[in-house]
C-alpha cells in the first residue's frame, strides 16, 4: 500500500493509522510546510490538483461572502480554513464513491464534480443548485444537523448488499456529534459493518458553542469506542495528512480486513476562520487571538511552501494558478447570475413523481392570480 506509518496495512503491520492514541493526530506537514510524517504517494499532478482546489475554494469563499454583502446572494456558510479537510478527504475517494455532505462542503462537492455554479445557485435560493448532475455521486445538502449520517450509512449498506465497491463518506461538524442521528447512524454502521467513512470537521465551534461545551470527551475520535469501530484524529489543516488518513479509511472500507471494522470515524481538527454564516458575528463569542493562532495553521501556504520546496511550484506557476482560479470563479458567478428566476411551477414540480390533482389545482389558482395581477401580486414588500 505504501502509506507507511499512516497507511492501512492489511498484511497485519503492527503500526497502523487506526491504532494510534485518539489524541495523537496524524500529521504530514507542520505549520510551515516542513515534512513531519510520511508523505502519501501522490503524483505531482495530484498534489497540484489538491493545491488548486484549495485555492479555488478559498477564492470562491471570499467572493461568495461579498456577493451576500452586496445582496446578490442569501445567507452563505463560509469554509475558509477548512479547505484541507474537504479537499484532502474528497480527493482520496474513488470514482464510484459517494459523499454525503452537510451545508458547508462546497469544496468537497467541487472535487466530486458539483459545478461551482450550482453551489452558487443553491445559496442564491434556486432549488436547481441542489440537483447533482446525473453522474455525480453527491447527495443533496443536508441542513438539519447530523440527519445525513443515517443516510450515509444506508447508502453504504446498499453498496454492500448489492456487492458493489462504493464507499460512502459522510461529512458533519463537531456540533453534529451531539445529535441522536449521529449516534444512531454510526452505531448502525458498526453493527452492519458498512463501507463508511464518517468525517467529522471539528472546526472548534458550533456557531457560538465551543467544542468543550458539546461533549466532555477529550477527543471526538474516541467516540468510535462506543460503536466498536475505528477512530482517528488528523490535523485537519494538513491536506496531505487528511488525504492519507481518508485514503486508508476508504481502502479499509472497500477491502475489509477480517479483523477490523469497515467503518472509521475521522476527527479532522481544524478551524473556521470566518463567521458561521454571513448572518453570524463571531466577534461576539470568540477572541481574535484564538483566530490568529489558528490562522497560522492555514492549510494553503502550508501546502504551497511544501510544493515550492519540492520544486513543484514557483512564483510563476502560483501566479498563473491564481489568475485561472479567479477567472473560473468569476465565470461561475456570471453563469449563476444569468440564470432566470425559476418559474412558480417549480414550487410544485417535484413534490411527487406525478402531481396529485389538488396540487395541480393549487398551481392553477396561483397561475390564475398571476394572470390577473402579474408577478407584483406576490413579490410585494
Amino acid at each position: 500500500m505504501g502509506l507507511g506509518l499512516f497507511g492501512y496495512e492489511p498484511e497485519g503491520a503492527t503500526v497502523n493509522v487506526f491504532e494510534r492514541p485518539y489524541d495523537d493526530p496524524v500529521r504530514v506537514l507542520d505549520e510551515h510546510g516542513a515534512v513531519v510524517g510520511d508523505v502519501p504517494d501522490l503524483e505531482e499532478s495530484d498534489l497540484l490538483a489538491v493545491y488548486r482546489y484549495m485555492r479555488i475554494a478559498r477564492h470562491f469563499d471570499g467572493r461568495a461572502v461579498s456577493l451576500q454583502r452586496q445582496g446578490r446572494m442569501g445567507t452563505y456558510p463560509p469554509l475558509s480554513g477548512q479547505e484541507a479537510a474537504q479537499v484532502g478527504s474528497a480527493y482520496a475517494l474513488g470514482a464510484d464513491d459517494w459523499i454525503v455532505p452537510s451545508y458547508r462542503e462546497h469544496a468537497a462537492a467541487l472535487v466530486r464534480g458539483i459545478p461551482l455554479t450550482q453551489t452558487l445557485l443553491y445559496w442564491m435560493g434556486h432549488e436547481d443548485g441542489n440537483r447533482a448532475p446525473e453522474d455525480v455521486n453527491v447527495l443533496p445538502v443536508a441542513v438539519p444537523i447530523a440527519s445525513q449520517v443515517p443516510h450515509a450509512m444506508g447508502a453504504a449498506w446498499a453498496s454492500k448488499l448489492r456487492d458493489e465497491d462504493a464507499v460512502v463518506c459522510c461529512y458533519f461538524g463537531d456540533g453534529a456529534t451531539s445529535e441522536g442521528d449521529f449516534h444512531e447512524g454510526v452505531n448502525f454502521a458498526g453493527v452492519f459493518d458498512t463501507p463508511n467513512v464518517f468525517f467529522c470537521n471539528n472546526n472548534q465551534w458550533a456557531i457560538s458553542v465551543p467544542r468543550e461545551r458539546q461533549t466532555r470527551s477529550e477527543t471526538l475520535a474516541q467516540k468510535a469506542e462506543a460503536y466498536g469501530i475505528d477512530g482517528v484524529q488528523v490535523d485537519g489543516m494538513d491536506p496531505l495528512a487528511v488525504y492519507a488518513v481518508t485514503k486508508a479509511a476508504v481502502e479499509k472500507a472497500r477491502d475489509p480486513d477480517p479483523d477490523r471494522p469497515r467503518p472509521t470515524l475521522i476527527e479532522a481538527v481544524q478551524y473556521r476562520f470566518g463567521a458561521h454564516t454571513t448572518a453570524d458575528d463571531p466577534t461576539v463569542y470568540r477572541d481574535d487571538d484564538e483566530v490568529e493562532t489558528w490562522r497560522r495553521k492555514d492549510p494553503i501556504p502550508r501546502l504551497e511552501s511544501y510544493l515550492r520546496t519540492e520544486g513543484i511550484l514557483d512564483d510563476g506557476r502560483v501566479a498563473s494558478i491564481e489568475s485561472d482560479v479567479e477567472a473560473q470563479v468569476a465565470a461561475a458567478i456570471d453563469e449563476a447570475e444569468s440564470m432566470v428566476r425559476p418559474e412558480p411551477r417549480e414550487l410544485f414540480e417535484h413534490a411527487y413523481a406525478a402531481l396529485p390533482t389538488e396540487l395541480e389545482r393549487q398551481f392553477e389558482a396561483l397561475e390564475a392570480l398571476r394572470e390577473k395581477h402579474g408577478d407584483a401580486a406576490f413579490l410585494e414588500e
Partner: protein
Amino acid sequence: MSETQNLTLVQAVRDALYTEMQLDEEVIVLGQDVGKNGGVFRATEGLFEEFGGDRVVDTPLAESGIVGCAVGMAAMGMRPVPEIQFSGFMYPSYDQIVSHMARFRARSRGRFTLPMTLRAPYGGGIRAPEHHSESKEAFYVHEAGLKVVMPSTPYDTKGLLISAIRDPDPVIFLEPKLIYRAFRGEVPEEDYTVPIGEAVTRREGEDVTVFTYGAMARPTLEAAESLTEEGIDAEVVDLRTVSPLDREAIVDAFKRTGRAVVVHEAPKTGGLAGEITAIIQEEALLYQEAPVTRVTGFDVPYPLYALEDYYLPSVTRIEEGIREAVEF
C-alpha cells in the same frame, strides 16, 4: 381467475411483502424484531427463513436510524420497507420522515427519489400499554411529499401495500392492528395492485354519507346496517388513502346526500375530519343540508386500557353521529 387464499389482514401484509420480495431483489424489510421473531404481530413471519438475514433485517433499537438508513438505501434506488413496531414509536424518526423522506425528491429536483414504504401498525382497542394505540395520521398528512395509506380489508391491504412498494414516492402504510386478525377475506395469490389515492364505497345509501378509513370502517358499516331499522340509509365511503385525499370521491359522494359524518379514532382537533369538512364546504356548500358531524377520539392523550372503550368511537357513538346528521 387466479387462485385466492382466505387471509387475515396481517397475513395479507405478509403476503404482499413476500410477493414483492420474490419479484424484486431491491425490496428489503428492516426493523425491530422483523427477522427471526417474524415481527411482534407476525407480519414478517417466515420471511427471514425465506429471504435470509440480508433482506429481512433486525436492526438496533433506533427509529431515526431505521428511517434514516432506509432514506439512504432508497436514494440509491433500493426499495426498503422499514417497519416501526407501533405508530406511537414513529416520533423519534419524525425529523427523518418530514425533513427527508418527504422532501428528498423536491430537494434534489428529482435526481434522488425515495421508493420506500414505512409500515407501522396503528390504532387502539387492543388493551395495549401506553403509546401502543396511537392514530396520528394527521401528523403525516400535513407534510407534502408523503403518501399515507390506511387499509381496512385483507384484499386492499395486499393490493395497496404492493402499490406502495412499487410507488416511486415514499409511502407511510398504517395498518389497523385492531383488525389484524378480526376476520378473513379472499386475497388473490398473484401480485395485483389497488391504486393509492382512490376511495371506495363500501355501502351505498341515500340519506347520509359516512367517511371513514382503517379500523373504523367495520364499526361504521355496522352502524350503517343497524340504522336501516330506523329507516336511515347511510352510504359508507372508505377513504383507504388519507394523503392525497380522494377529493373527487368525497365531494361526489357528499353531493348525493347533502349530509356527512366523518369517523376516525384520532383526536378531533386537527384530525382529518376537519380537513374533510373543509373540502366539502369549499366545494359543495350549496348541497349541504346539515353540519358535517365528527365522530372521533377525544382531545386527550389516549388512555390506558381501562378507559379505552370510552375513548374509541363505538357503534353506538357512530349511530348517534349519523342520526345527528340526518335529523338536523
